[in-house]
Structure formats: C-alpha cells, structure tokens
C-alpha cells in the first residue's frame, strides 16, 4: 500500500492521541464516559480553533506570536460588548479581522518578518484587552454559554465541535481552490505569483481567515469560562504552535494538516490531564509537562521511522 504524504501526516498525530487516550483511560476508567470525555476535551475546543488560526498563518510561511494576546482580546470583547450590545461586538470583531488582513498585507508588501510584526501586535492586543477589562469580569452571552455547554445525545459537545472544526477546515484548506492557493503561497510563492495570482490578496485572505478562527476561539473560550480577563489565553501562542507541529504541520513550505492540527490540540489538552492523573510531586509537576511534550513528540519520531520503513518496502 502506498500512503500519500498527507495521510502519513495524519496517522502519526492520530496514533499519539490514541496512545495517550488509552493511558488516561487505563489510569482513570471514569474518564471513559460521556461526562468524562466532555471534561477531558471541552477546553480543547478553543485551543483547536486557535491552532487552526495559527496553522493558516503557518501555511503561508509566517508565524503569529500574537495569537494568545489576540484570543484574549477577543474573549474580552465577547464577554463585554458581544454580551451587552451584540451589534457593536460583531463590528469590533469584523474590525479585528480586517486588522489581521491588514497585517498580512503589510508583511507582504514591506517584506517584513511576520514574527516581529506579530510580536508588536501582541502588545497592542494585550493593551486593548487591558483597557477593555482592567480587572477580570464580563459575562458570556447566553447563546455562547448554551452552545458550549449543550449536551447532544451520544457524543459530548467537545467531540462534536472538534469533528466539525476538523471537517470544515479540512474542506477549506485541503480541498477548496482557496486552500490550494494559500498552501501554494507557502510552497512556492513565486510560482503562484507568476501564474497571475495576487499573492498579497491571498496572504491577506489567509490572515483574515486566521483572524476569524481566532475570534471564534475567543468566543468559545468565554463560553466555557463564563467570563474573561485580559491574560486569559496568553498561553495559546505557544500551544497553538505546538498543536500545529504535533499535528504534522511544518514551519515552512505550506505543509499543514487541519485535521492533524485539531488532533494536536486535543493531544496537548489530554497531555495535561494525563499528568494530573499521575500524582507527581509539586516540584516536578512543571517539569513533567515538558517531559510529556517530549514523549509525545518522540512518539512522532518513532512512528515516522516505522512509516518510513513501510514506505521503503
């Protein structure tokens, strides 16, 4: 059997997730239930959305260091304006998405390193969030809260949402023409340009779409936590990058996988739980988080090896 490289990119993260899940079930059989799964995974939903956003940026060979600050900002907007005057909230979100597109344009036109621009933007979003919510508070709009806590039959919301996110983004990024162009820019932006496309437009669109997913991440997060604060999601910057990598994406070359990214986000969330089931001395709890990241990624290497042997046969 010959596996396509995109299929391989998926097998590895999926296998890591399965192994980790098996370990968690083994240690805590109670997790193997509707509520158990929901508790394990519901906080993965906003992370998955942020990971998708980061993945879109990475698919055009850029990196967004402002992801965490931006999701925090969106969470603050969702907990304030979106709740009190939805129209203004939506307008702010549209504006933020437009700013994202604008960042894409500036980065492209001035040939700037995305890392620096987004580093600068992370201060800006952080400042806006602090202005919006100088101390934690706000409240999730009712419909958001409902959406994030609804209990569909058979499968918990966290799983349903993850599947929907994966399916939609897989279609957009891997199947649609638009996705092809975005990944094309990541793979060889010169050839896309020479074929007559506007690369700046494509990049702007990729950034805007990333902005949209980050906005969704902020809203979903507030739905889960019921309120926001200015620092609520700062960790999402690194988490989202780690999620993309765990999911088989690469920093350059437009090699990304949306399904993998969602799986990566789930894996990261699960890794945290796995640890708290292990009862480690507090001194080493932080270190264990590092160790588990290492183990999960080493697993990736191991499966890669196995897969290579397969392919060579």
């Amino acid at each position: 059997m010959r596996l396509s490289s995109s299929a391989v990119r998926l097998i590895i993260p999926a296998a890591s997730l399965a192994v980790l899940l098996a370990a968690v079930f083994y240690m805590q059989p109670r997790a193997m239930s509707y509520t158990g799964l929901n508790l394990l995974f519901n906080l993965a939903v906003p992370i998955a959305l942020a990971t998708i956003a980061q993945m879109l940026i990475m698919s055009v060979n850029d990196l967004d260091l402002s992801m965490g600050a931006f999701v925090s900002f969106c969470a603050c907007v969702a907990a304030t304006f979106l709740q009190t005057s939805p129209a203004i909230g939506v307008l702010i979100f549209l504006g933020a998405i437009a700013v994202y597109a604008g960042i894409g344009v500036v980065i492209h036109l001035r040939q700037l390193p995305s890392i620096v621009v987004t580093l600068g933007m992370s201060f800006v979003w952080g400042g806006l969030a602090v202005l919006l919510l100088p101390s934690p508070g706000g409240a999730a709009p009712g419909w958001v809260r409902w959406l994030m806590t609804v209990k569909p039959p058979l499968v918990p919301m966290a799983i349903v949402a993850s599947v929907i996110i994966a399916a939609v983004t897989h279609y957009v990024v891997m199947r649609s023409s638009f996705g092809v162009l975005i990944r094309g820019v990541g793979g060889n932006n010169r050839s896309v340009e020479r074929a007559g496309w506007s690369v700046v437009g494509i990049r702007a669109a990729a950034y805007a779409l990333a902005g949209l997913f980050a906005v969704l991440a902020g809203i979903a997060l507030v739905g889960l936590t019921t309120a926001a604060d200015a620092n609520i999601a700062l960790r999402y910057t690194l988490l989202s990058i780690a999620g993309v990598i765990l999911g088989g994406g690469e920093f350059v070359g437009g090699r990304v996988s949306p399904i993998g990214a969602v799986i990566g986000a789930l894996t990261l969330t699960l890794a945290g739980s796995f640890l708290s089931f292990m009862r480690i001395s507090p001194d080493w709890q932080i270190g264990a988080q590092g160790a588990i990241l290492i183990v999960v990624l080493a697993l990736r290497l191991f499966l890669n090896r196995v897969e290579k042997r397969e392919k060579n046969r």
Partner: protein
Amino acid sequence: ETADKKIALSNNYAGNSWRQAMLTSWDKITKDAVSQGIVAAADPFTTAENQATEQAAQIQNLILQGYDAIVINAASPTALNGAVKEACDAGIVVVSFDGIVTEPCAWRIAVDFKAMGESQIEYLAEKMPDGGNLLEIRGLAGVSVDDEIHAGIQAGVEKHPQFKIAGSVNGDWAQDVAQRAVAGILPSLPEIKAVVTQGGDGYGAAQAFAAADRPIPTIVMGNREDELRWWKEQKDANGYETMSVSIAPGVSTLAFWVAQQILDGQDVKKELVVPFLRIDQDNLEANLETTEAGGVANVEYSLEDAQKVIDAAM
C-alpha cells in the same frame, strides 16, 4: 467524619517565593492531617504557567479523579467559573482563597485587598502629615488583585489629598521587573517621599533608589525576608521606619481546614475574611526571626484557628 474524604489543591503558579511558601505550608499541615487520619488525601496540583485556561482544565481533571473537595488559588476570579460550576454540579466542595473565584457555589476565603492598599496610605498619612509625592508599583495588569490594591491606594490618596501619585509602574510582582521599571522612571521623577507597593517588589525599589543615588523614601514592604532584612539593616543604621503588609502564604492551610469542616458537615458561610499579615516597626525583629532565610513571613493555621475564623463569620 472526613477520614475517607480526599481534598485537592489546585494551584495556578509556583514561580515565586510566596507560592513556594504556600505549598510548603500546605505540605506540612496536610501531611499531619493525613497521617492522623483526618482526611484520606490532600494532594497539591500546580499548573506550569499562570494561565486560567490551564487551571480550568486541571480542575476538570480533579473532578474526574473523584476528589470530594477542591481548594483553589485561582488564576482569575471569573475565568474558572465554568469549571468551578461543573465541580459544584458534581457535588464537590470548592473553596477558593487568595485568588478567589466569583462563582456563587464556591466558598471564598478573601483578603480585603482594597483595605490592604488603603492601609498603606493611612500609615503614610500618620507618619508624614505633610504628604508628598508617591511612587506606586503595581502588579500585573489585568489581574484582579492588582486592580483591587490599586483601588485601595487610590481611595487612600483621595482621602488624604496631601499625597500625590507622581509615577506608577507595573512591577508584575517580580522584583527584577520592579527594579527595572523603577530604574527607568526614577530619573524623571521629582523627590519621592514614599513608595507604595503590592508585595514582593520593595527590595527591588530600594535597590533602584540606591543605584540612582537618590534618598531612600519610605518604602512599604511586602513581608519578604530580604525586604525585612534590608529594613532591619536600615533601621539599625539610621532608624529607618516603614511598614510591611501582605497576605500570609499559610492561608492555604486555612482553606484546607475550611474545606475539611465543610466536608464534615459544618455550616460555614460562603464568604470568609482573613486579616492580612502586617509587620510594623516594633514587631519587625520578632517576625524576622520566624521567617525562613529567603522566604516570606508566614502564619500557618491549625484546626482550632480555622474554627475560630469560621465562627467569627457566623
């Protein structure tokens, strides 16, 4: 009877001496409690980074693990409400302290941070009735404790208009950050009579004043041993006067006992208040003596202490 009950500590941060002292106190008191068979387990859990989302996930895991009570020092008063609600729904007792949560189903062991801020100005007003310029060192922007202490300080300044906040910086409760920020603003400031702080940054401020060759103002301290020791040195050398105030890390043990009492079926009010730990000119030496080198001035609570606090609130 709580011999078969399990209590967990969910802690959002371990990266400073205050938190380490808090964990040590927890360890000391709960180990005894477990060995005496008062509770079955009292496990501490710490997240890697000071993030509400990570702590929310941690709480959800603790629910899954079947703890009977969760004691929380929260990263955010509101962002954990979703997870706390789920814990309550699962029949788990949730007690929050220091960083409290606003979810109504949880118990709160609160420190009146606003009063803590205000007390600094009260002290200064008494000491220097003429007032003067103040430098305010704030904590981490966007965090409620920072906002509350700041509000207290502002209220104090309004009440005593002879004081004026001439400069304000964010020290993120980290002494090197505070030192850096103060050093940057100091050259542009007029004469400063006093520095109001939020804890953990007083020594950094003193260093910055010394480095800039400026007269050392009255710096309100935050109960850290190095601050107290520096104060003592100054006091011995030139009679330096100030005060020190902070919340005692041992409050985690109070939270533990409160959780135990609730599990035991006692009627406990949802809102409990603990006094902050204040050190003054006269009890400086005594406190310095009991404070571990490099640590934080501390008070640990016994079951009886806790019962007193609970009864007082009734």
